[in-house]
């Protein structure tokens, strides 16, 4: 119960309907005998009333579809999936130590910028620097295509490079922002390496026209088919690279 005469705070609480019924009556009785305070309180009430009226219109704005909770929920889910994919790459990276960890991060960051940049990064990390043991080796039981088919159904067949002396020797699975990827490394008798890289086109279904580009000492041939994107990566200016460009039919 509030004491009489009411304090200024009590009067505000009265205006804001924050007093219980008894206190409310006591304030009303008091105000009835105090015209100047009563006018003050009425002015506050009018301001509040006018403010409610003035701001009422802002409630009637046309709905903004971008603010729909279901849509925002979806967007958040997509973002967290992307973060999970990056996290998986970083997990691989942790196993390889700090420096290559940054390389792997670059790999996910670059992938959006240039076609199949991740394939080239993967070649550098795994084929050239031999960072990680392979997930699968041909010596295990020989069927590289069968191993690949377990992860990528209806993907293009592994190209046959045997006429140039290259055969598949090892495969490994990777995680990228666009989804799971696999890289198969071919070798010839002199330890030259060519990689075959396959992954989904990503959430925006970014399919590639047949193309080729080089980046530093590497060259990539890329294309799409069967719902996946592919790249074959080899060092520039080697007989193997020329062979890839000229003879391999994808």
């Amino acid at each position, binding site marked *: 119960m509030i004491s009489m005469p009411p304090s200024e*705070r009590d009067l*505000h*609480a009265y205006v804001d*309907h924050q007093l219980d019924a008894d206190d409310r009556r006591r304030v009303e009785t008091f105000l009835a005998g105090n015209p100047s305070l009563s006018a003050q309180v009425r002015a506050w009430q009018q*301001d509040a009333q006018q403010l409610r009226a003035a701001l009422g219109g*802002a409630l009637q704005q046309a709905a903004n579809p971008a*603010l729909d909770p*279901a849509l925002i*929920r979806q967007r958040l889910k997509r973002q967290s999936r992307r973060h999970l994919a990056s996290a998986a790459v970083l997990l691989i990276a942790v196993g390889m130590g700090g420096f290559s960890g940054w390389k792997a991060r670059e790999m996910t960051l670059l992938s959006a910028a240039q076609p199949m940049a991740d394939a080239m990064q993967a070649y550098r990390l795994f084929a050239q620097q031999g960072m990680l043991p392979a997930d699968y080796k041909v010596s295990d039981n020989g069927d590289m295509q069968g191993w690949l088919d377990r992860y990528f159904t209806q993907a293009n067949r592994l190209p046959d490079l045997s006429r140039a002396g290259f055969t598949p020797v090892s495969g490994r699975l990777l995680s990228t922002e666009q989804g799971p990827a696999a890289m198969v490394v071919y070798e010839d008798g002199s330890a030259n390496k060519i990689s075959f890289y396959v992954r989904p086109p990503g959430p925006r279904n970014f399919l590639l026209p047949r193309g080729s580009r080089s980046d530093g000492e590497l060259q990539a041939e890329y294309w799409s088919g069967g719902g996946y994107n592919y790249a074959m990566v080899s060092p520039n200016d080697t007989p193997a690279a020329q062979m890839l460009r000229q003879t391999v039919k994808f």
Partner: protein
Amino acid sequence: MNDIDEQLREIIPRLRRFALSLTRNASSADDLVQSCLERALSSWGDKRAEGDLRAWLFAILYRQFLDAHRRSRRYARMLEFFTGRDDSQPSAERTVLAQSTLQAFDQLSTEQRALLLWVSVEGMSYKEVAAILDVPTGTVMSRLSRARQALRQLSDGEITRPSLRRLK
């Protein structure tokens, strides 16, 4: 999930109105509401306190606004440092005569606008407002009292001095 979304959809117009009263700009208001909803939805499980959903959302939105405001003020100060002038400060000539309650309201400080909207327009309790601002209830009441006096003076058409707009 759908139940939560339904509750949110009912509150969104109120969030937009609150954001509008803070930013005074419809598109930045909606940006603010969007980031508020993102924050709310992503921290729903662990952060959502018991109690009024509306008050919880107002609190998130208000803090995000203050953070953004602080950042842009820092940026403005930096600009001022390099260019040697400050466009954000109203000049004497730009001082306006407040004619309506809404114009008067727009001249109040951020916290005063928030206080009046929460209490006078949304009808929230002093206790809820105290929880949002993380101050005692008594402090809410004295700040509210000052906000009301300021609104009253501005509505009466008193000429505002620029310094009054910067009430902290």
